[in-house]
C-alpha cells in the first residue's frame, strides 16, 4: 500500500510482484480505473449513438420487410385464389347454361316429335275407325246374307223332305 505517489518505479513493481499477485500492486490501480472509465464511456456513447441503432434498426427493418413480404404474398395468394374461384364459378355457370340449352333443345325436339306422333296417330286412328266401320258393315251385310241363305236352304230342305213349304214364322221359331 506504500505506493501513493512516488513509488512508480519498476523496482517497486517487481517487489510487489514477488510478494504476491501483481494485480494487488496498487500503484497501477488509479490509472487503470480512470482509463477503464474513459474507454467505457466512449464505447457506451459509440454503442448508443451508432452500433446499437444500426444493428437493431437493421434487424427490425429486416423483420418488418419479411413480415411485409409475407403479407404481400398472402394477399397475392388470396387474389389468385379469388380469381381461381371466379373462373371455376364462371365455368360452372357456362356448364349449367349449356346443359339448360341442351335440355331445352331436347325437350323442344321431343315435343315436336310427340306432336307429329299424335297427329299421325290420330290420322291412323281415323283411318282405322273408317276401316273398322267398313269391315263391320261388310261383315254385317255378309252375316245378313248368311241368315238369308240358311233360311233359303232350310226352306228348300224342308220343302224337299215334307213336300210342303214352311212358313217364315216356323223357320224363325226353328232357328231359336
Amino acid at each position, binding site marked *: 500500500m506504500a505506493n*501513493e*505517489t512516488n513509488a*512508480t518505479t*519498476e523496482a517497486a*513493481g*517487481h517487489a510487489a*510482484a514477488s510478494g504476491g*499477485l*501483481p*494485480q*494487488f*500492486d496498487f*500503484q*497501477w*490501480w*488509479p*490509472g*487503470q*480505473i*480512470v*482509463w*477503464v*472509465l474513459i*474507454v*467505457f464511456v*466512449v*464505447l*457506451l456513447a*459509440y*454503442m*448508443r449513438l*451508432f*452500433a*446499437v441503432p*444500426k*444493428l*437493431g*434498426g*437493421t*434487424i427490425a*427493418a*429486416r423483420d418488418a*420487410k419479411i413480415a411485409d413480404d409475407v403479407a404481400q404474398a398472402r394477399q397475392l395468394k388470396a387474389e389468385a385464389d379469388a380469381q381461381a374461384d371466379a373462373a371455376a364459378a364462371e365455368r360452372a355457370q357456362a356448364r349449367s347454361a349449356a346443359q339448360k340449352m341442351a335440355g331445352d333443345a331436347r325437350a323442344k325436339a321431343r315435343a315436336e316429335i310427340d306432336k307429329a306422333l299424335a297427329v299421325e296417330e290420330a290420322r291412323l286412328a281415323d283411318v282405322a275407325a273408317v276401316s273398322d266401320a267398313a269391315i263391320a258393315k261388310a261383315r254385317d251385310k255378309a252375316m245378313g246374307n248368311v241368315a238369308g241363305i240358311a233360311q233359303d236352304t232350310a226352306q228348300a230342305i224342308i220343302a224337299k223332305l215334307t213336300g210342303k213349304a214352311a212358313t217364315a214364322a216356323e223357320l224363325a221359331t226353328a232357328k231359336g
Partner: protein
Amino acid sequence: MAEQPAIDPMHQFLIHKMVEIPPVNIGGFLLDLSITNSIFTLLVGAALVMVFLALTARGEIVPNRAQAAAEALYGIIDNVLVTPIIGAGGRPYIPFIFTLFMLILTLNLMSVVLAVGNIGGQHWTFTVTAQLAVTATLAVITFFSVFILGFIKHGPKFLSLFWVPGMGIVGGILMVFIEMISYFVRPVTLAMRLFGNMLGGHVVMSLFGSFVVGLGIFALAGGIATLGWIGSGLSLAMIVALTGLELVVAVLQAFVFAALTTVYLNEVVNFGHGH
C-alpha cells in the same frame, strides 16, 4: 538452473509503462495516466470493437457474413438476454449491456489469441480482464448504474428491495441485513468471477508452457533425462487443449457478466412485479 526463475506464471500479469504521461495533480493526489501495457491492450481492444462494428454494421437487409456475425453478437444480448429476461422495457439498456459484453469478450479473446502485450515487453498475451482493477471498475460501473437507476425510477421506495414480506417485524429486520449483504456483495462477486477465471486459466497455461521449455532443456542433458521429452510433449498437448478451454471460458465469462447485468437491471426495470 538459471539466474531468474524458470517458472514464473505471474510474470505475465506485470504492468510496465509504455508511454510516460506526466501525472495529473488532483487535490494533492497525483493521478498517473501513463499508457501501460494493460492500458494499451485495453485501448486496442476498445478500438477493435469499434472498428469491427463500424465495418460490419452495414445496415443491409441481406447481410454478408461479417454483418451476420455482428448481428448474431447483438442477438445474444437482445434475443437471449434482454427480451426474455426484462421484456420490452429493457430495450433502452441494450447499449449498456452490449458495451460490457463486447468489451469483455474482446479483451478475453485477445488474451488468448492476440499477443498485443508483446509490444509492451511482455512475452505472453496480456490479459486485461485478469487485472482486478479493471474487473472491479467494470463491476462497480454496473452495480452503481443499476443502483442509481433504481432510485431514479422508483425513488426511496426502491429501498423496499431489502424488505422481505411475510417475515414479521423482527424476522424482517434480520432479513434486511442479510438482503443488504447479498445485494452489496454483488459487485465483488462480479469482479472476482471474471478476474479469477481469467487469472486461473492463464496461470495454468503459463505453467504448462514453462514445463514444455523446462523439461525440453532438461532432456537435452541426455541419459535418463531424455525422458523429459515425454513430459514436454504432454505439456504441449495440454496447452493446445487448454487454449480451447480458455476460448470457451473467454466467451462464457463475457456472457455471464452480461447476463448478470441483465438480471440486476431486470430487478430495477420490473421493480415490484417479480418479488
